[in-house]
């Protein structure tokens, strides 16, 4: 099999050698300043997404369980919440939402219909949302530990474990 090796020069690599620019410290400070201005809007988006999840969780459409479209819509909302919660430091909400993602993915793949577990996760997310009365760290940990027990009960895998195995940067 013929194989060619290229060593392309890109404008990005030229930027690494160009005069001027920013140091790592300056770049990160600049980025954090820019992002902080979005925190208020991010809180609103999280609130809206949790409300959407609550609406879906309250009204299964497919013979007593959620339709594939509803499951996909829930996963999309969860993905958004994980991104925002992780970015703005809402660790407990991030952990609860990741648990819900794993649960939804597991239920989708296994064909199991466990509505109650989904609702428990959504309620937990409401408890941990920005603006909710803060829970003591001990209580937060206990709640999150209970959520992971649900996953263990069903024997569902965690996407984060798979990512670690694949060596994906996080």
């Amino acid at each position, binding site marked *: 099999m013929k194989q060619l090796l290229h060593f*392309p020069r*890109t404008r990005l690599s030229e930027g690494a050698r160009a005069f001027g620019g920013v140091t790592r410290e300056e770049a990160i400070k*600049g980025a954090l300043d820019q*992002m902080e201005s979005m925190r208020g809007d991010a809180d609103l988006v999280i609130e809206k997404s949790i409300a959407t999840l609550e609406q879906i969780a309250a009204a299964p459409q497919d013979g007593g369980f959620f339709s594939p479209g509803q499951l996909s819509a829930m996963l999309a909302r969860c993905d958004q919440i994980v*991104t*925002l919660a992780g970015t703005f430091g809402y660790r407990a909400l991030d952990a609860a939402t990741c648990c819900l*993602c794993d649960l939804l993915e597991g239920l989708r793949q296994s064909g199991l219909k466990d509505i109650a577990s989904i609702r428990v996760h959504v309620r937990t997310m409401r408890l941990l949302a920005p603006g909710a009365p803060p829970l003591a760290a001990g209580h937060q940990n206990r709640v999150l530990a209970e959520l992971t027990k649900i996953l263990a009960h069903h024997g569902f895998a965690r*996407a984060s474990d798979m990512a670690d195995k694949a060596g994906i940067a*996080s």
Partner: protein
Amino acid sequence: MGQPRLNLSKVRCLLADRDVFTRGLIAQMLRGFGMGTIQMASNGEQLRELVTKECPDVCLIEAALPDIEASELIAWIRKQPEPLRFVPIIVLSGYTQLRLVTAARDAGANLVIRKPASAQMLFDRLAWVANSRRPFIENDNFLGPDRRFRKGPPAKAKSRRKTDVTGEPA
């Protein structure tokens, strides 16, 4: 000697993510890094159009856009004429999309980052892509950056290549 600097003021970045708020958030980070131009797409069709028209210097693509997976888009970009085919591509994977990242890497992505991407991580990865001298490999089955970029011998595997013995990169 001062800290190394990265000058992104002339770099054009194409950012594709389905979620408008996430796009805004990552764009703010990139602006904080001093990125010259940031163009945004919310789906594969828009991305193809912008890639062809604007010839970006770096692409950040979500692992699954609403109409297409990143792996398909990357394979398409790698088939375009130079210099586009060598454009650095970073895939951003949401928590629920982690199952798709192996395909993205095998399609020729330079790096995969798990969302939420912190400012530190995003800057470090951009700097790494800018500074690394990874060759592009072109053969019948693959066009993309060499996937064997870790230095050192393979872990727990029988060495098959001469260079594996010394641990030197191939």
